């Protein structure tokens, strides 16, 4: 049926279809970042900005260049993994002279040491942000108001939550749901090969439990159906 078609997987070349690499927007962002940037005096001052700390670290440098290419990564863990792909290179004995506004005596550069994200890193990122969203729904809700019925529906579809289905404690259900999702993504039981799609699982669950949003529930169920084929899942047509 066309509603369960994975268009992204079908558009991959045969090598990618065979090797099934994990896809991520981080690889696209990494591709947009320059291979090497020589940091001159003006760039140095722009990166440091108004901070009292006039030293430089990878976090500030990468943040600066992400702003330049108009990309925002809100998740701290993803940003950290992106930063791990860069390091500084110092040649000679460079000196920063604020009187003449120059760097001389050597060069300072930011270089990209990895052109693509490591598969292991992407595997660890699968579903992580979505699980955090699931955790967040209980922070703003009083336990007594938590929708137990909707949580039970989700747990039944997920499977493997029998002991937490039986309990009437909202807190225990929350822990059970989180544990199940962590186990699911650690083993990648659903064979999801796109980090953004994996994160959406948690987003849909959180939205449905909190607000009863049927489109979120439909998307979640659709994805579950697609797992039955056993194929890697790269994309899915979502219901708005």
């Amino acid at each position, binding site marked *: 049926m066309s509603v369960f078609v994975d268009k992204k997987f079908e558009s991959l070349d045969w090598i990618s279809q065979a090797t099934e690499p994990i896809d991520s927007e981080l690889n696209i962002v990494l591709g947009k970042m320059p291979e090497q940037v020589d940091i001159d005096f003006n760039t140095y001052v722009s990166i*440091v900005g108004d901070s009292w700390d006039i030293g*430089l670290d990878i976090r500030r440098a990468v943040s600066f260049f992400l702003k330049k290419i108009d990309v925002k990564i809100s998740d701290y863990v993803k940003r950290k993994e992106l930063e791990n792909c860069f390091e500084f290179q110092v040649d000679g004995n*460079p*000196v920063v002279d604020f009187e003449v506004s120059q*760097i001389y005596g050597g060069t300072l550069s930011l270089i990209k040491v990895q052109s693509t994200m490591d598969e292991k890193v992407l595997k660890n990122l699968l579903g992580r942000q979505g699980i955090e969203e699931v955790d967040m729904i209980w922070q703003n809700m009083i336990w007594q108001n938590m929708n137990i019925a909707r949580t039970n529906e989700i747990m039944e579809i997920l499977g493997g939550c029998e002991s937490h289905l039986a309990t009437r404690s909202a807190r225990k259900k929350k822990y059970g749901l989180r544990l199940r999702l962590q186990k699911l993504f650690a083993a990648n039981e659903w064979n999801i090969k796109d980090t953004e799609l994996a994160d959406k699982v948690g987003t849909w669950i959180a939205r449905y439990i909190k607000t009863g949003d049927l489109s979120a529930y439909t998307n979640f169920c659709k994805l579950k159906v697609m797992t039955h084929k056993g194929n890697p899942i790269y994309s899915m047509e979502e219901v708005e």
Partner: protein
Amino acid sequence: MKRLREYADKHGVSRPVFDIVPVVRRDHEGASSSIEEINLELKQEYKYVPEINEADPLTVLIAKSRNEAFSIGIKKFTVSNESTVSNALRNVNEIFLNFLRRNLPNKQPTHTIIYKWYRRDFLNRLTYPDALSENLDNAVLALYSYVYRNVDDSGKILDSKKEHSKNIIALLEALMEKIKNESKKR
């Protein structure tokens, strides 16, 4: 504290020329290293070193009390003379308190009226907006110089100057009374 400000005004600042110092991090096995951080260190030849005249304790006091800070906005080092004077007065207070703690003949010197006054009230009186008279300020600094020349680093009177101890205590008491009276008039 006009005199302290005059001393502070004579000083310059460092020139903002820095060495780039990479911070090298090694991985757990030590097999590879990377540079993830850069520090800037002021080049020694551009660092401002205040001139000190050992015969004039106030030059030592001001040199010790200066804190220059680099502002990337204006690309210069700056020193706040007001902060220098405040720090200097704190150091003056400290030396008086150390002296009293180490040299008062009482069993519990920190429980005496004079010690408590110097701990609680001395700085407030000197840094009040309508500051005390210039003569009194000069008296404070003169007493500071006198104490500085006659004590060791811990505040204990030097062995060769033991006969001065009672004089210094008497002067500190007189100064305390004078400042109290002056403050009452205002």
